[in-house]
């Protein structure tokens, strides 16, 4: 489902140092994994590679059974549509309503308006945002924005869901709620990877973990 083989990553060109070095692991389909490590360890970089926002400088990344080095650029959009992403900084579009933000991946995938309406409404209900469909992101609390980001990531029922610090800005109750939603996606069959600092939350939800330190994978399991 997701495989890294001796992956190295450096940002930009030239003699920049590698921020990821010799990272190798495999995540089976339908698994749930934590991605742990101190700030700057390379968690977001790993997730960026997983959702095809970055290309490895070295090694092979295989996502949804597709080895990236052998894919044409034109094949990437189709693959990206099967991956849901919750960004560390949400990345909601400020000029779109909650409804339109959540509908965005479906519109990009070319789903008919009549069809996507019901799916988006269901996703808003699922994340407890029913009353906020017409609101602009700027008028929402941090927790609500986080849930919009989550609803947008899962509305297309992706095969792979990556979440970067999805509870970063939330209090305990809000964080638990978001995590419950992520675990439910896992229960429904999605492969889920969640990067976090929140060791307390990890303790509450034991699951296999990838542990990073200074760009290297130091523990897996």
């Amino acid at each position, binding site marked *: 489902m997701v495989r890294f083989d001796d992956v190295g990553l450096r940002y930009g060109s030239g003699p920049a140092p590698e921020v990821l070095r010799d990272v190798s692991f495999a995540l089976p389909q339908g698994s749930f994994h934590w991605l742990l490590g101190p700030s700057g360890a390379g968690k977001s970089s790993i997730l960026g590679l997983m*959702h095809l926002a970055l*290309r490895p400088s070295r090694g092979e990344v295989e996502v949804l059974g597709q080895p990236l080095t052998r894919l044409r650029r034109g094949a990437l959009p189709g693959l990206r549509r099967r991956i849901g992403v919750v960004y560390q900084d949400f*990345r909601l579009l400020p000029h*779109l309503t*909650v409804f339109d933000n959540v509908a965005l991946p479906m519109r990009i*995938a070319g789903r008919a308006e009549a069809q996507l309406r019901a799916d988006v409404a269901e996703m808003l209900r699922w994340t407890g945002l029913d009353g906020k*469909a017409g609101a602009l992101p700027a008028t929402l609390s941090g927790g609500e924005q986080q849930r919009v980001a989550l609803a947008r990531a899962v509305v297309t029922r992706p095969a792979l869901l990556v979440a970067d610090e999805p509870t970063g800005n939330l209090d305990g109750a809000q964080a638990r709620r978001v995590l419950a939603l992520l675990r439910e996606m896992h229960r429904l069959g999605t492969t889920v990877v969640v990067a976090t600092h929140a060791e307390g939350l990890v303790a509450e939800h034991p699951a296999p973990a990838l542990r990073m330190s200074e760009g290297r994978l130091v523990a897996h399991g």
Partner: protein
Amino acid sequence: MARPPRVRRSRGRDPLGLRRALSDRLLPALVAAMALLAALALAGAQGAAELTARWETGAAAAVTVQLPPGAASGGRLERALAALEALPEVAGARLMSEARMQALLRPWLGEAPAVALPLVIELRLAELPASPEALAEQIAAAVPGGVVESHGVWVARLVALARSLQAVALAALVLVAGIAAAVVAVAVRAGIAARRAAIALLHDMGATDADIAGRFAGRAGLLVGTGALLGTLLAAPVLAGFADLAAPLLGRVPAGSLAGLPWESVPWGALALLPLLGAALGWLTAQATVRRWLRRLP
């Protein structure tokens, strides 16, 4: 189910917020000005072409030499032709055929003129002389008893002038199109810069380059097409006015009043093409600009 308000829902079709990032003010206004220039250049080119066509017949025989009707006998004509051919300024000399002369004279003399017609020798010149009068004297000296007519030289000069005007107008047209493309490219690049984050997000979600470039191109095509239409509409009365000024040159009577302007001589067909060509230019330029920029994304 909570239904978002209508206006906002329709914005969902514009996730990049291009209605603001490519605003409907500056670009159409600039394009309108350029379309006005293009329309003027276009009409200039067409007008010059019309004048050229009209004058060309007059210029065909820049210089003619007339000999009295009896000159055909006694070898006088042959001597004159040989003398003329010998002049370095003359590229060719030939007798105007009777049929052509009759055709030229028909309006004045009718079908079968009773009078004896003079012999007319048409000269093709190697190049237009600096002083037609001096050339006329030279020719008169070469052909004793011949009457030299060199007004055609002036007409030929006007034709050359009209031709170069036509070339200049077409060059201006090309230049305007180039500037318009540059303006669109700059506006699109500014739009990309303003929406960089949203573009990256759509790209990450699996939007194709064609999808993203298509959104910019649709918007740019609409704005440029609208601007070009506006400029073209502004140009029409100006062109009708010019056509009125040029009327005497084309053997028409100037109108002098707005309603009487020669609207039929405005090149409507070419003008109608301007907004379409403008829209196409905007669309293509935006496509190229955005696709080029998108190549930097993984």
